[in-house]
């Protein structure tokens, strides 16, 4: 069997457990429910297209926060679990190379973020069908096609979480550090706004700060305003990849 396929199969086997499936289900249910509650206030909008747009925005507002939080907590718990129980060590004994250990971390993150996007798509379809008429119409599907644009955002944030998880290897400390990182990011976000207004700070900064481009995602279909933004985003993620790789490659188990 192809090496990556085997790694993916192992990661899927790890996720495909009753407990994890329950968490996935609860997540989708929570997103649908909260989105339904926040979408109730759009009942007065009579124009069908405007109503759909308003519903989508309220859905995204809920799903952004939840999917991010859900992703991060699960990535940290499931990644640090590998170290807390010495399972990474067992995998090396069983013949994993350190490269495969790194690849399995990345494949797990990709798999997890794809599942979250799939759950959001399902939640959106269920939620909008509940608030509008059945069957699913073209407008709902068109709006749903924008949801996969969330993936780079989720994956990038997942990389931050994975980096912290492989660095500290302790669940509680990793979650606390991640919270500290998000607070730092919010401060940067505010500073970015301040400096842009005062000193005409370039708009590229919006593409680098996940919080900013996430916000823009709600109202726009494109993620990056300038090519420099895309380049910065790619470079930051490459650095994250490299640091995670070096940590796994150089570690003693």
């Amino acid at each position, binding site marked *: *069997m192809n090496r990556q396929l085997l790694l993916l199969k192992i990661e899927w086997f790890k996720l495909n457990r009753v407990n994890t499936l329950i968490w996935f289900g609860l997540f989708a249910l929570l997103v649908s429910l909260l989105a339904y509650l926040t979408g109730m206030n759009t009942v007065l909008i009579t124009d069908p297209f405007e109503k759909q747009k308003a519903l989508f925005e309220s859905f995204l507002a809920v799903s952004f926060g939840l999917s991010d939080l859900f992703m991060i907590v699960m990535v940290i718990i499931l990644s640090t679990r590998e170290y807390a129980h010495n399972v990474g060590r067992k995998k090396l004994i069983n013949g994993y190379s350190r490269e495969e250990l790194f690849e399995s971390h990345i494949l797990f993150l990709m798999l997890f973020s794809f599942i979250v996007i799939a759950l959001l798509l399902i939640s959106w379809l269920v939620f909008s069908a509940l608030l509008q008429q059945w069957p699913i119409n073209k407008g709902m599907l068109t709006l749903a096609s924008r949801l996969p644009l969330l993936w780079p955002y989720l994956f990038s944030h997942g990389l931050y979480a994975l980096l912290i998880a492989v660095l500290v290897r302790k669940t509680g400390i990793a979650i606390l550090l991640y919270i500290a990182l998000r607070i730092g990011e919010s401060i940067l976000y505010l500073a970015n706004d301040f400096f842009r207004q005062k000193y005409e700070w370039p708009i590229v900064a919006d593409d680098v700060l996940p919080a900013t481009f996430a916000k823009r995602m709600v109202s726009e279909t494109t993620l990056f305003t300038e090519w420099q933004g895309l380049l910065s985003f790619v470079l930051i993620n490459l650095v994250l990849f490299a640091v995670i790789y070096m940590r796994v490659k150089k570690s003693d188990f």
Partner: protein
Amino acid sequence: MNEFILETKDLGKSYGSQPALQALSWKVSPGTVWGVVGPNGSGKSTLFSLLLGLKSQDTGQAWVMGSPAKELEKGKVGAIMDEGSFYHDSSARYNLRISALIKQVNKERVEELLTKLGLDQTGEKAFSKFSYGMRKRLEVADALLTDPDLYIMDEPINGLDPEGIRFVRDLISQLHARGKTVLVSGHYLDELEKVCTHYLVLSKGREVFQGSKDEMEAKHGKLENLFGGGLKL
């Protein structure tokens, strides 16, 4: 086939300024059972970690079955380590299935070993709820999955009751009878004397003795004579 199943040359490892293993040159022939003996901190676990590719050596080389230790093929070595390296919240079957996927072993082998080692009735019971003896049995099942030619056992009888100790002793004897090579460390010298054909004795990371059981007896008498610290009241 190589003459030696395992070989080290000037193998060394330090933790900071503290040497854990110093310039060990060692050759292990197939079908032998080596007792790796020494006081706490003598370098036994460090040696096993280096042979399993878990740590990087500072000096020298280690080859296992002709490959550098860090490039071992999947399932070539069966290891029983002191701490249970399994998902603590998951069952024996689930944990063994993960190992079987990595080693590319079929489900039937997993079920066969669970039955043979008396773990088939544990159902969904989590590893963290297992007794020490059951944990060790799961480690053994994991090591046996691919029926490898080399086994590394780090203090396998620590904490076991008499039944568990006998289980491990029988396991080593049966593996030896089948021509497998076993490296086993421990502090229970009389137990090691029952199963080992060769000894490697370490102290403060240095080799004190290596050779066959006959050579040991000719030179030092009993294994315990190599260790001081007799008590006088």
